[in-house]
Structure formats: C-alpha cells, structure tokens
C-alpha cells in the first residue's frame, strides 16, 4: 500500500491540468458551472477537443487506438474534468457501444463505427428499455424478423436518453421466442433515419426534454448490423452493463458538486453569518465528505482490481448505489442551502442568451430542478433495488 502518487502519476496530473486550463473553452465551463442546458453543438465541440488530444478514448485498449489508462489515471482525469467544469461526455457511443464492438463486433463493424464515434460523425443512443421491460429487461418484446438480407423491426423502446439528437441507436431485440427469454435476444444497430423509426419526446417532471419514446414500424435493417451472433445479445448487453465500471460512482461529479455547495454555503447567510459556519449544515456536509473520501478509494480499488483482470463482481453494484445516493444527498443539501430561493424557477434562464436579472442569487435557479432530475440516477442503469439484489445474490450465499 502506498497512498502517494508516483512520479508518473504526478506528471500525468500536471499534464491533465494543463490540458483543462488551456483547452477547455471558458464558454463551456461557464455553462456547466451555472447549470445551463448544453446543446448538441456544445457537446460536439467538447467531444472534438477531447478527441484531438487523444483523451476521448484514452481508456480504450491500445490495439484500438486508446492509451489503456489504469484506474488511477481514470480517477485523476475524471476528478480534474469535473473540477474544471468540463461537460460530461455523452457515454453512449464511446463508453457503452464501443467496448461491445471491440469485444463482439466484426472487424468490419469495428473499422466502420469506432472512428465515426471518435470523430463525432455518429451520435448514439441506447435502446434497451421498453414500457413493459424495465428492471426485467429480458422480457423485452420488440421483434426483429429475418427476411433475406434484412431484419424487419417492430416494437417500441422508451426512456431513450438524447434520442432526439442521436443518429444511431443500439437496440436489444427479440429474434426468438424459444427457450428462456434471455436466449432469444439480439443486439442490433439501427440508423435512426431509416423509414419507420419515430422519436416522440417524453417530458420529465421538471419540464426538461431529455428522454424519448422510439417507435419502430417495419423498419428494414441490413443483417450486417447485427452485432455478434443472433440470440446472443443478452450476453453482450450484460457485458456492457458490467464492463463500464469507471464513472459509475461519479467521484469527480460529487467532488465538483461539493465545491459548488461550499461556495453557496459561504455566500448564503444565516442570522448574519455564513451558512457554512452553521453547525447543523456543517454536520451534514461533513458526513457527505466522509462518505466521499471512502468512496473515492473504494472506486479506485475496484477499478484497479478490474484492470488487474478480476472478474466483474458485486462491488460495481456497491459503487452504483453509494455513488448515486451520495450525489443525491449533495443535491438535497444544496437545495436546502438556498432556503426560500430554492422555490423560484425560470426555465428560460437555463438557456444560453438569457440576460435578465436572476431571481435571488445567480446560482439558485437550477438547484431544485437538479435535485428532482437526479432522482433518475437511482432508477436507471439498473435500479438501486436491482443492485441490492445483485449484492445479495453474489455475496450472501443464502
């Protein structure tokens, strides 16, 4: 055990800090810091900057052009990115689909799709969930029927994040009704411009358009778009779910959110003194910091074990639960730090170019909507109940 950074790690940290200082456009970090909505153009701009620097896929294995970053490097980059106010990278292409293609895709698929993900030609979204298939994903109903050189897709996906901006969607579809439900699922890539694909918005409880329904009516997809083998899609989907272990804990996001909360608590006054000095507030904040310090180490331990070749285990589930609940508790404390000014909400003020005086402190407007919006994090990506079921099943031997 040695908790000191090595010389190389320190040099890496320096390199990364310089990168953010020099290459992260101020106009993007201002938006992120002030909680404004990012447009697709904002995302593309940042994506391109990361790609130019080779950071976008630095965690990919070297044979696919990555740098094979280890756990410590990933942690440092994640923390520095968040502290600098960098936009979160849209994960669907570069972090979700890519590992599946690298592990199970054909050479042609790898050669075609991976570069397009990196250079931003294709934006991807994830088509797993259906109205009747949430936690019980294997019960999904959307069908793909083979007809000559094509599959014909029919059915509906839902909760598709950023589907309104995406060019392509990777879907789990039913290709067989034989055997166990898991045994008839395939993994297929669909161009969203294909006739018969229709995207309908779902508005979230705080009024944002972030997720969609995607409907498929007789959508013709070439057989080359099948990933791996027919009816093996469940294996690939599970691989995707457990493979992408970094980021699940959201350490950098939590650290940046705590920084922001501390800034608010120094500015807010309670009985004429900074809220930060209030013992009730300080106690709650301190508990969060205690949890986070431990979680950061847990996260690095798990990632290191993974890069040393340990099979994915229930620790991923622990990180998902702890990471989401911790960040939700930061959101909760942040809304409370605002007092009555958590209530006003001007939706247009989240757009760039809104120039009116803020209502209350300039940091207030997005706080309550963030609190509500982030309730999603314990629901998606395998709900926290499902994660607890996994821990119970894998660790308790009952």
């Amino acid at each position, binding site marked *: 055990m040695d908790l000191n950074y090595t010389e190389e790690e320190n040099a890496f940290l320096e390199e990364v800090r310089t990168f953010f200082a020099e290459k992260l456009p101020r106009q993007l970090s201002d938006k992120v810091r002030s909680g404004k909505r990012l447009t697709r153009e904002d995302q593309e701009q940042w994506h391109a900057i990361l790609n130019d620097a080779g950071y976008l896929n630095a965690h990919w294995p070297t044979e696919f052009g990555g740098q094979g970053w280890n756990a410590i490097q990933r942690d440092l980059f994640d923390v520095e990115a968040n502290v600098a106010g960098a936009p979160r990278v849209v994960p669907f292409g570069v972090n979700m689909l890519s590992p599946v293609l690298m592990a199970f895709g054909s050479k042609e698929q790898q050669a075609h799709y991976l570069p397009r993900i990196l250079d931003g030609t294709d934006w991807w979204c994830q088509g797993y969930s259906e109205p009747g298939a949430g936690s019980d994903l294997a019960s999904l109903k959307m069908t793909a029927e083979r007809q000559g050189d094509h599959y014909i897709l029919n059915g509906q996906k839902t909760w598709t994040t950023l589907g309104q901006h995406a060019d392509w969607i990777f879907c789990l579809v039913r290709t067989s009704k034989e055997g166990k439900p898991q045994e008839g699922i395939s993994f297929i890539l669909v161009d969203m411009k294909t006739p018969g694909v229709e995207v309908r918005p779902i508005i*979230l*409880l705080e009024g944002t358009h972030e997720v969609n329904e995607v409907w498929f009516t007789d959508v013709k997809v070439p057989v080359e778009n099948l990933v791996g083998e027919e009816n093996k899609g469940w294996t690939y989907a599970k691989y995707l779910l457990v493979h992408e272990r970094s980021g699940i804990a959201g350490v950098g996001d939590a650290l940046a959110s705590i920084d922001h909360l501390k800034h608010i608590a120094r500015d807010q006054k309670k009985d004429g003194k900074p809220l930060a000095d209030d013992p009730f507030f300080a106690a709650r904040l301190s508990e969060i910091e205690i949890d986070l310090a431990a979680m950061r180490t847990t996260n690095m331990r798990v990632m290191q074990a993974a890069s040393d070749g340990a099979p994915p285990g229930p620790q991923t589930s622990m990180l998902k639960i702890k990471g989401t609940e911790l960040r939700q508790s930061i959101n909760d404390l942040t809304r*409370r730090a605002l007092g009555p000014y958590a*209530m006003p909400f001007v939706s247009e003020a989240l757009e760039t170019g809104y120039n009116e005086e803020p209502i209350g402190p300039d940091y207030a407007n997005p706080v309550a909507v963030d609190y509500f919006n982030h*309730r999603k994090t314990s629901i998606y990506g395998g709900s926290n109940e499902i994660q607890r079921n996994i821990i119970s099943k894998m660790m308790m031997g009952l």
Partner: protein
Amino acid sequence: MDFNHTDDRRMLADMAGRLVRDQYDIEKRHKMAASDDGFSREMWAQMAELGLIGALFTEEAGGFGGAGFDIAVVFEELGRGLVVEPFLSNLLAGTILAGGNDSQKAVLEGVISGETLLALAHGEPASRYTLSHVGSTAVKSGDGYTLNGSKAVVISGDTADHLVVSARLSGDVEDKEGIALFLVPANADGVHARGYSTVDGYRAAEIALKDVSVSETAMVGDAHDAYANLETSFALGTLAVSAEALGAIEMCIDMTLEYLKTRKQFGVPIGKFQALQHRMADMMTEREQIRSAVINAAGNLDKADRDWNISALKNLVGRSGRMIAEESIQMHGGIAMTWEYAVGHFAKRIIMIDHMFGDVDHHLEQIIKFGRAA
C-alpha cells in the same frame, strides 16, 4: 380526549374533498397553474362561495372557523389536489388584517367573499428563515410613512390586490422590536412586483418598494404587536402547508400502492417484492406520524407550547415527507420521472414545502432552543 372531528368540520372536509375530486383533475390543475394568473379566478369564486375561505377565519374576523382543525382539514384536501388558488397568502395576510382597524377589516371581508386578494410581503432576500429579519424601512413623513426595501419569494405576490408589508421603524435588522406592518395597495406608486412560477407550479414574486407613501392609518395594529402577529401568521401558515403536505403524502402513498399492485416485472406485481413492501410499510407509518403531528399542532394553537408543536410538525414533514416523496418516485421507477404521471408533482410540492416557514433543520434548531429555555 377525542380524536374525532365535529360534524361541522367533517362536512367542511367532505365539501373541500368533493370539490377537489370532482373538479380538480391534474390536467386542469396544470392548465390553471400555467395561466397568466397562475390560478383560476372562477375556481376561487366558487371556493369562496362554498365557504372554504371563510373557514380559515374566526367569527370576529368575519369568517366562520379559524380554529387549527379548520385550517388543517381544508389544507389537507387542497394538498390532495395540488390546488393552486391563493389560500395560503390570504390566510397569512388575512390573519394579520383581522387585528386591524375597521377599514382593514372591511378588506378582509372582501377576501372572505372572494373579491379581494392579499399577500404577505415579509421575507427578504437575506432573511432565510429568520422571522424577525426586516431590513425594509418605514420612515415617518408628514402624517404618513415612506416605505423602502425589497421583499423576496412573496407567495402569490403578483396577483394580490393588497399587500401586507413589514417594515422597520427602528432597531437592528434582526430585532423583534421596531417592526411595523402596513396594508399597501398593490398598485400604489413605487410598488413593483416581478412575478414568476415556482418549481412546483405555484406563483410568487420579488417585490421592490421604492419611496412608497402610505397614510398613518395604513399601519395594521400596534407596532409593538407586529412581531407577535407575524409569529401567529407564520404558525398558522406552517400548520397549513404541513396539512397540505399531508394531503400530498396521502396521494403519493395511494398512487404508489396502486402501482405496486399493477406494475408487473419478472412475472409478478412488483408489490410482491419484500424489499418494496417494507418500505411501503415505513411510508404508511410515517404518514400516521405526520397526521398525529398535525393534530398536535392544530390542537395546541392557543396553548403555551404552540411553537414547540409547530416546529415538531414542520421538522417531521421535512424529514418524513422527503422520505415519502423520494420513495414514491423510486418505487415507481422511470414513470414517476415524467411530467405526465402525477406522482412527481405531488413529490415536488412536498419537497418545496420544506422551503417555506423554515426547513427541517431550522425547526430542529427551534426545538433544541425550546428545550434549553425550559
């Protein structure tokens, strides 16, 4: 002891409940909330006619209720419908006017009949939850006063006809002495309201007072009583929003229970999973705890330990209300995250009530202080 409501009060609750059930579906509510006023004047007139506003005030004030339990039963029903009409602001300001001069009492009559709307302009940008915080000033000039200052998050402050405004005659910004209350027409020169929606779909305003001239008779009651009057108004307001939260909590629990029975995953209703059953059991237990705390607060309004019971209630609503709001969303899964499905709107109301009249920690601190003083 008797834990049953009187017949009159049961009728009041039934009437309010029926109105909400029959005429206040969530779609209609969203439409009214999104209108320019942020509520429906027709609906308000109908509510006045049914006596729902009068039920909030005592007979001396021109109403026919005004006891803690009257306020509690009405607001509980309002909470079940997420009613956006301005009950709260009129309760807060009306309670203060009840102690005013004849012309002020006449204004209150107009409130009870549904013709006049009031708002209490008390909180300020830096007050947070400190009731005595008043930085706005009232300076004697001629035979009246000149008011200056800014008021923050004034509930229903953009549609009120009259504002009850707190301003300081003397003393430091957080002194309990030296505050006065004034009845000010909302269209008086120098009053500027910037209205907006709140996250949960209600209306509030930032109000600027710039050299607003008022006559001597605009002062409500005796300046020495202003702080105590504000305390009473806030005690009633806290009871009201807590009872409202109880109504919203009942709805959250009903919807979640229904969903546990109907939503199937893994071939069974998700309510079959014990992990969820136990949490529903906790939610139901906390709902009863909150109901009891409402009873404690409503029944002790005239007693010496009014404020202890009010703070206990608000702390519990902040604490357990949050648990119930969050669990209701969580146990529904994705559907609860949508605008279209109602449970999220109830959850938002419950959480935003934590930001009115002091949050969970503010009231915990009050309880600790009461304990020290005892």
